[in-house]
């Protein structure tokens, strides 16, 4: 590992001010530390945001669940409030990686990183989330820009993620057998006016599958999408799953999600 300056930021302002082209925020460190260790990323400054109290915690209102950026996956998974308001969100958090990862990894780190096979981005998309940063509110649909790319600007810090409470929802994941990231993750949410089927793992970045969403909007039943063949041409292909297999898994897990609702 190359040397770097470590800063424990007191507040959001300080954290943001310290940021540069060659810095990273340190939340759970589950992505940033391994990348630094393997030499895939080098930073001059590492800005620890774990000690900023304001960034952590869960708030539930009538319409939404707001999760602070540095809230750990394990906290979301075990939160009674989340389990009651959006049980599928708690389930998603409880199925991330392994116990060690869940006890360190954070929602802010997860979506800032926007790994194509991370789980949280699909929740953001399906639950019409608003990403609150230190200077604006970004809709999920405008936040995830592409593989490991987001709308965040230099020094911009995620403070919280606000998930809209749906009528029904479910998250289904086909885990990568080795890492337990999503080979395919399908987040299904039925809102008053629409059904969203958000898919992670299948393509270079999270997306809403329009065909599945449309079919389920007109009829919310698994038979509405049974046997639906999706276009696999833009899907990922690797040693664990071909594009063709991924395409089939998306429909399969969407069906399972509907059945589980």
């Amino acid at each position, binding site marked *: 590992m190359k040397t770097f300056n470590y800063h424990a930021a007191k507040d959001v302002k300080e954290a943001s001010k310290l940021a540069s082209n060659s810095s990273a925020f340190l939340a759970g460190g589950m992505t940033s530390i391994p990348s630094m260790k393997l030499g895939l990323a080098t930073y001059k400054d590492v800005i620890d945001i774990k000690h900023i109290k304001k960034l952590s915690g869960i708030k539930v209102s009538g319409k939404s669940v707001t999760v602070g950026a540095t809230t750990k996956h394990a906290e979301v998974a075990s939160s009674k409030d989340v389990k009651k308001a959006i049980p599928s969100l708690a389930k998603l958090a409880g199925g991330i990686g392994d116990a060690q990862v869940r006890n360190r990894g954070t929602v802010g780190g997860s979506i800032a990183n926007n790994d194509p096979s991370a789980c949280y981005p699909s929740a953001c998309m399906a639950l019409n989330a608003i990403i609150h940063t230190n200077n604006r509110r970004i809709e999920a649909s405008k936040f995830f820009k592409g593989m490991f790319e987001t709308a965040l600007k230099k020094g911009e810090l995620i403070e919280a993620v606000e998930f809209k409470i749906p009528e029904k929802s479910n998250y289904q994941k086909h885990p990568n057998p*080795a890492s337990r990231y999503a080979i395919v993750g399908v987040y299904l949410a039925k809102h008053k006016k629409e059904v969203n089927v958000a898919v992670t793992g299948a393509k270079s970045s999270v997306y809403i599958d329009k065909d599945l969403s449309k079919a389920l909007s007109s009829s919310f039943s698994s038979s509405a999408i049974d046997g639906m063949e999706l276009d696999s041409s833009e899907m990922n292909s690797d040693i664990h799953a071909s594009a063709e*297999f991924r395409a089939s898994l998306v429909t399969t897990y969407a069906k399972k999600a509907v059945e589980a609702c």
Partner: protein
Amino acid sequence: MASLVGSRVERKEDKRLLTGKGRYTADINISNQTYAAFVRSPHARAKIKKVDTSKALKASGVVSILTGEEIANDKIGGLIAGWAIRSEDGSEMKVPANPPLAKDSANFVGEPIAVVFAESLDEAKAAADLVNVDYKILKGVINTADAMKGETIHEGIDKNLCYDWLLGDRKAVEEAFAKADKIIKVDLINNRCVPNAMEPRACVVDYNTASEEITLYTTSQNPHLSRLIMSAFGGVAPENKLRVVAPDVGGGFGSKINVYNEEIVCSWASKKIERPIKWVAERTESFLTDTHGRDHVTHAELAITNEGKFLAFKNETTANLGAYARVFGTVTPTYLFGPCATGVYIIPAAYTNVKAVYTNTAPVDAYRGAGRPEATYTIERLVEKAAMELGIDRTEIRMRNFPTEFPFKQTLVHTVDSGDYVAGLEKAKQMSDYAGFEERRKKSVANGKLRGIGVSSYFEACGIAPSAVVMSLGCGVGLWESSEVRFNPTGQVSVFTGAHSHGQGHDTTFAQIAADELGISLEAVDVVHGDTDKGTFGMGTYGSRSLAVGGIAIVNACRKIVAKGKRVAAKMLEVSEDEIDFKDGEFVVTKSNKKKTIGEVAFACYLPGSRDSEFKSPLPEGEEPGLIETSFFDPANFSFPAGSHIAEVEIDPETGEVKVEKYTAVDDFGRIVNPLVVEGQVHGGIAQGIGQALHENTEYDETGQLITASYMDYTMPRADNFPEFNLGFTCTHATSNPLGVKGCGEAGAIASPPAIMNAVIDALGGQEISMPATAEKVWKACKVLKKSNSKAA
């Protein structure tokens, strides 16, 4: 006194190992040590044109950089193949030189080319990046099946063929095949596995400039053997100037048998730079350079009658050795494989032909079961397929071909001294509710799932020893084991053994044996192992040999102690030896009930006199003081554990997910010293075998890059991949050793892959599928099944 042998004694070592008090090689630090970082080949096959260290030498903290040139100049020998195998045509096997630092060519990704020693690990790694190696990249030979057609990797080794070996009688087999009603055929791949010991390899070397002694702390399953090899073949130092210490070792599964490049290089270099050296493998280095396991491509056939009687067996296998032949690399796919390939059956004619090939991949060597899992996989896939094709129940066809009389002269090499294969399978059927399977299958089908059941009956030859036998088969050393038992004057006992635990619980089981033999408490016994400066010589731990060979040396040394004790007690009690019985730690005069405890006798052996009494020694005339005995045990035969495992899986046809629903294992390990330890070994073995069958995917791309070189891509099985294992035992004693023990370390890994794969294939309606049966492969097979089912309907 209750017998300790046979009881569930909790492991003595667990307090240390589970509370972080274990002492592993990486825990050792020596003042003024330097840190080693190896420069490794990023190419699978390349000519090394030039190694330029000039820039790296100027980097901060660098103490020294050594290359293949220097190690060759110092005439340090390379890594060796421990068994000489002869081809069918009588020619000797072909083995390339394997220098500790490659000088002229690199033959697999990760092969060490140079080494940097620096004041800190970071500096060593940074400088290693600055070593500039000029390569001429060549086209590598990667694939096992095509290796003989590839470019020649090692000069003079035609077709990349190490040997073309035959065991058995081709003519007899062909004759039997001509008369068969039916011939069952399978084409199998036994997938390559990375052993993945929890503790990565490491070494710490300390050279004493005054005594000129090298102390090597290392992660080894067999420190004495390592010393012998490094001294005799490496020329690193004479044995009396080389101390090898393997402290706690965190798993090996065979991968820590070999003496590796890093150990030779660091030992040699420590003397050269006159500084201690520390090297600890990173996980990626372990993936790339630990010896891998398996990697066979097999075509096998079984000739049968319509009644399901087996007539003859043939096995044509290509075994991948990787880039070089290592210690057990050449014997694993031959004598550890071929003789077991006919399984637990009477098959009158058989042969196994193995072509061992070199490729530009990590060397392949013994891995838990070594050859016997590959053998069992071959025969058990054939047998299950035979049952399917004949429409005979899979357990019935096995019963029809089991031997029922022992000793059983198996077709190819072994005479199996004891066993009861029928009892084992019957018990497994009962424990697994075999009869109720079809009901469970219906339930799964009703839920849209597929369900399958698979059986695997196995035997294996372990307790790897009989020196005369193994040496006649090409082994470079005798594989006896030794022990020294030392009584302290105040009554405790140190048991020195040449076997070395890397997780097997020897501290406990060996103490149980010695405590029983000597009639003393478990607490009074300490087991000492893993240090060439302590105790006698030893061959180490592998091939499920520690108890059946090493344990018996302990028994015999203890019995020598008792024999001497009896002589001394007789003198002390003023009777003749044959009037004394030894029982529960006491020498008792049968007639008078006068006695001396073994502690009193030991005390007397060390203090043979007394100030107050007249001169009168308790020692008989000519008897030496002290109470220390040594024994070398070399059994007359291997030992032959056997059993039947039954697996049941459920498959989700839409996701391809295979869930192991039930797993039943019934094993015959002979006498069991500690059921708790044995169950642990069986659990681990089964988990490892299920890992191979369903999860573990070692993949090299066509250029020879290992694309599964981390846990992000290489699937290690985890606890939630398994059901509760249902374990049972039958018992027939081994006749080749006085305890009647057989060995249990490898059985689980031997039996489970075919049990699982037979179940998966059963669920898939008999469709062949290769290991690991990953979701996508299974999903594809499910699609085919669905199509053919709908056609049939």
